[in-house]
Structure formats: structure tokens, C-alpha cells
């Protein structure tokens, strides 16, 4: 008898996935070994990769990718957890506060980038004007090579912390109240309750936030492009912006090699991490 669940249901989706995701991904391994103009392909072996790891600006983009991803996801976990605790307790204006914190998640990244570029303008920006009024000299934010990358990371945290908060709230709501009642009967302090009940039982939520923000952080492009374009110099370049710059300059082979480096990095971090986090989740 024929199954009522036909395999050909996979087909239409498969066509899109295979032609526009799988084929390019597989082909990129080949193209990354070539000098490529979209019309001419010349095999040059691993030259692109050698160049990638020899040119200081490209290496800096590589290093920045990690800094950016770890800073943003670390901050999103810590701040998201704090806001999550605050916003899941019985406080006034809870619904409104939640909405306000979550809205930037949905706002246009380009719009947010432009907005903060102006707000954080070192010369006329309102933020520095405000700091000056308080007698604090405002930093150069995105024009100072030392702070450019961290400035963009900060805006990224601003935009994304609402999602982390929301996931933590969802995780906390799922914890059965009985645990807290039992802890109260035993006379546990609220700090102890948090460390020994809330935090361990939030493990799945934490795993989601960590994975999500790491994936997002490693691939991040639009916010960086809107605020600094990788500058000043190459100080805020990341892999994704290096890939775009090389593409723009017509170095398609080199650009694709950067892309391969990017997905090797993403896969090498995310797959083992998600396996480890999920295993940890199963144990508890």
C-alpha cells in the first residue's frame, strides 16, 4: 500500500535548498581554490588561504570575529538573565517594560545602525553632549580604532538583549513552582534559591541564548556595515565584512575562501558546543 505521506513532499523545498544553498556551499570549496572572476576560473591551490592568513587586515578580521561574537553573546547571557529575573518577578509595569526591551529585536538593523551612528557621533552626538554636560569626556566611539569594534558590539547587545531576556523569561515560567515552595519551606535564601534551582533549571534556555547569539555574532555583518564599514582602518572588520569587501573589489576567489573560513569557524564552534550543551541538559 502506498504511504499517505509521500516522499515527493520534500521535493519542492529540496529544489530551493539544493540549488541555492547546498550547491553553492559545496562549490565554494572548489572556488576558494581559484582565482575567479565569475567568468574565468583559474586553479591556484591554497594561495587564497595563505593570503588570507598572511595579510594583517584579513587576520584582524578573523580575530575580531571571535572578540565580537564572544563579547556580544557573553553580555547577552548575563544581561538577559538579569533582566529576565527582574521582569519575571511581580513588579509594576512589567508588560510595558518587556515590550519596550523587546522591540529593538524587530527593528530594522540598518535603521538601528544609522540611528546609533548619529547618537554616538563623537563630535555632535547627543550621547557625548550628555556626557560632557556631566563633566565626562565622551570617547570617540566608532571613530577611535581602540573602541570601534566594541561600540558596534554594544549596539548589537542593545538590539539583541531583548530576545535573550525573552528566552530566559520563557525558561523561568516553565520551572514548576513546587521547587520554590520546597526551598522556602527549607528556609533557603533567595540567592541560594537562584543558584541551586533557577540557574540549573534554566540550562536549556541558557543553551539557546548562547547558541543563538554565537551564531548571530560570528555571522554578523549588517550592523558593522551600517556603523563603521569595518573602519577606522580595519579595526572593526569581521569575517563577514571582509568577505563582502573582497567581493566588492572583484576578488571572488579570495572572498569565497573567506566564506569557507567563516563557515568552518561557525561549524567548529557551534556543532560541538550544541552537542555539549544538550548533553548537559539531558543529565540535569
Amino acid at each position, binding site marked *: 500500500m502506498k*504511504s*499517505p505521506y*509521500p*516522499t515527493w*513532499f*520534500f521535493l519542492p523545498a529540496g529544489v*530551493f*535548498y539544493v*540549488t*541555492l*544553498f*547546498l*550547491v*553553492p*556551499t559545496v*562549490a*565554494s570549496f572548489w*572556488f576558494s581554490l581559484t582565482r575567479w572572476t565569475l567568468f574565468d576560473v583559474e586553479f591556484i591551490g591554497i594561495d587564497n588561504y595563505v593570503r588570507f592568513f598572511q595579510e594583517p587586515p584579513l587576520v584582524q578580521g578573523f580575530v575580531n570575529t571571535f572578540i565580537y561574537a564572544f563579547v556580544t553573546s557573553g553580555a547577552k547571557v548575563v544581561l538577559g538573565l538579569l533582566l529576565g529575573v*527582574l*521582569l519575571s*518577578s*511581580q*513588579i*509594576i*509595569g512589567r508588560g510595558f*517594560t518587556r*515590550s*519596550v*526591551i523587546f*522591540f529593538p529585536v*524587530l*527593528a*530594522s538593523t*540598518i*535603521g538601528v545602525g*544609522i540611528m546609533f551612528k*548619529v*547618537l554616538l*557621533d563623537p563630535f*555632535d*552626538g*547627543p550621547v557625548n*553632549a550628555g556626557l560632557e554636560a556631566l563633566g565626562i569626556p565622551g570617547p570617540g566611539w566608532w571613530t577611535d580604532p581602540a573602541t570601534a569594534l566594541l561600540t558596534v558590539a554594544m549596539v548589537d547587545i542593545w538590539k539583541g538583549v531583548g530576545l535573550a531576556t*525573552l528566552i530566559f523569561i*520563557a525558561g523561568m515560567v516553565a520551572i514548576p513552582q513546587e521547587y520554590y515552595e520546597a526551598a522556602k519551606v527549607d528556609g533557603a535564601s533567595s540567592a541560594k534559591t537562584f543558584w541551586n534551582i533557577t540557574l540549573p533549571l534554566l540550562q536549556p534556555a541558557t543553551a539557546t541564548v548562547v547558541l*543563538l547569539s554565537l*551564531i*548571530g555574532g560570528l*555571522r554578523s*555583518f*549588517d550592523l558593522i*556595515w551600517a556603523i563603521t564599514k569595518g573602519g577606522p582602518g580595519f579595526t572593526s572588520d569581521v569575517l563577514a565584512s571582509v*568577505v*563582502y569587501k573582497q567581493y566588492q573589489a572583484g576578488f571572488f576567489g579570495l572572498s*569565497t575562501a573567506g*566564506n569557507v573560513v*567563516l*563557515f568552518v569557524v*561557525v*561549524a567548529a564552534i557551534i556543532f560541538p558546543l550544541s552537542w555539549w550543551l544538550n548533553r548537559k541538559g539531558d543529565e540535569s
Partner: protein
Amino acid sequence: MRNRVWRWTGGLVALVIAVVIFLVPFVFMVFTAGKTQQEASALQFSWPTEWAFFDNLMTVLSTRDFLIVRAFFNSTVLTIGAVAIMVVLGAMVGYVLQRRRSRWNPLINFFVLAGLIIPPAVVPTIWVLQGLGLFKTLVGLIAVHVAFGLSFCILLFRAFVAGIPRELDEAAIIDGAGPVKLFFRVVFPLLRSVIITVVVVQAVFVFNDFTYALYFLPGDQNATVQLTTYNYTSQAVSAWNLLFMNVLLITIPPLIMYIFFQRQIVAGMTSGAVKG
């Protein structure tokens, strides 16, 4: 007693943080968008002395032959097209993947996961699109969004289908429904709540997307709103009022979505959200 103190102080602290850090930047944007050019150039956080909101709106809309209006049209077509295809195809895969145990399942599950995690190889994708004659076309960008967004849809649909009793399928089969009819007439309508979630979350994502539009639909002629706004920054450096009006305009559609579908967005983001 302690609870009441916490309820008020904690609440007020949270409220102040939220307003100062998250709301004030948007307020600044709205104020600047309503100022005259001269006043806006001071970049001060102040109430506009003279509201030029409507004038600015008209100027932005009519700039360069109503480019932004055309861009809004493109973005709408893009969002509706991509999301509609994604939902139908994603639901088909999620449904069969959940219902039918086969030796292909582990492989398909792996591909779904890979689609979620691995960043797309952009230049080779351009190469494929060019081969198909779809590079720099709206259709091409729609196809790209479908390809990259399917994984997320499939995960949500698969999880949801697990909650639909198989007895329903069996009853429909006994009544003589074929596989296609079974899916589209019986199962698909039952997916309604998850469909709304997927539609809303993906619509916001596709509408806000900048990166893929930059790669696969460059140029001004058929650009999306995100791209047009971005290109605007290089031309209108001194006209902050117009720039912020532009940013305000592209922020409104997601805001409306949020107001109407807050619960669905929240549910979708938290349940299957493994998206960057």
C-alpha cells in the same frame, strides 16, 4: 511587605532602565524626523520648535522620483512572495518528516540543522543565480530567502505536527482522501496557529534583511527599503531630519506587526528560534 517594596522599586528601576536605554533613542529619532533641516543639524535631543513632520515625510517620499515608494512596493512583494512559498513548502517537509519514519530522516534532519547554522556561501550563490538568469531580480532574491529560511520553518512545523493526532489522518484516509487532499484540506488548516507564528517571524526577518539584498539585488532601481535607506546615508549626510524620517518609515511595518501579533512573535522567537 518586602514584596510590596520590591514590586514598586524593582518595577520603577526596570521601567527607568527600559525607557532611558531602549525608548529614548527612538524618541530622538521621531523628534529629529519632525524638525526642520536647520534645527535637526544641531543633533540636539529636544522638542522641535517647529514641527515639519509632514513636509519631511513628503520630501522623503518624493525624493528621486518616489524611489522609496517603489522600494516599499518591492519589499512588500519580496516579503509576501518569500514567506508564502516558505510556509507552504516548509509545512510539507515538516509534516512528512514528522509523520513518516524513513532512513532518509536523519540525513534530512542534518540538512535542516546545517541550513540553520552554516552561513550561506554568497559569491557562489550569485554564480548559481546568474546561471539561472535570476541575479539582480526580485524573483532571485525571493528564491534565496526561501532557500535560507526553510530550515527554521521546517523545525517549527515538525514540532507542531507532532501534536496533531494521527487518528485524524486515518479518518481522512478512510473517507477516501489522497495524500495531497489529506495534507492541504485536513492537516494544513490545523497548522493555523503555527503558520501565523512562522509568517510573522519570517515576514519581519525578510522585510528587515539587508545583507542578502545587498548581495543579490544591488542597485537602486529595484532595491528594497533597507537598501534604499542605506544608500540614502551616503547622499543625505547633512539632512538628518530626512534621514531619520526615512529610518522611521522602515521601522513602522515591523512595529505594526509587533503591536498586532505580539504573542505570536514572542512564541515563535522562543520556541524554534535558532536564528541569527
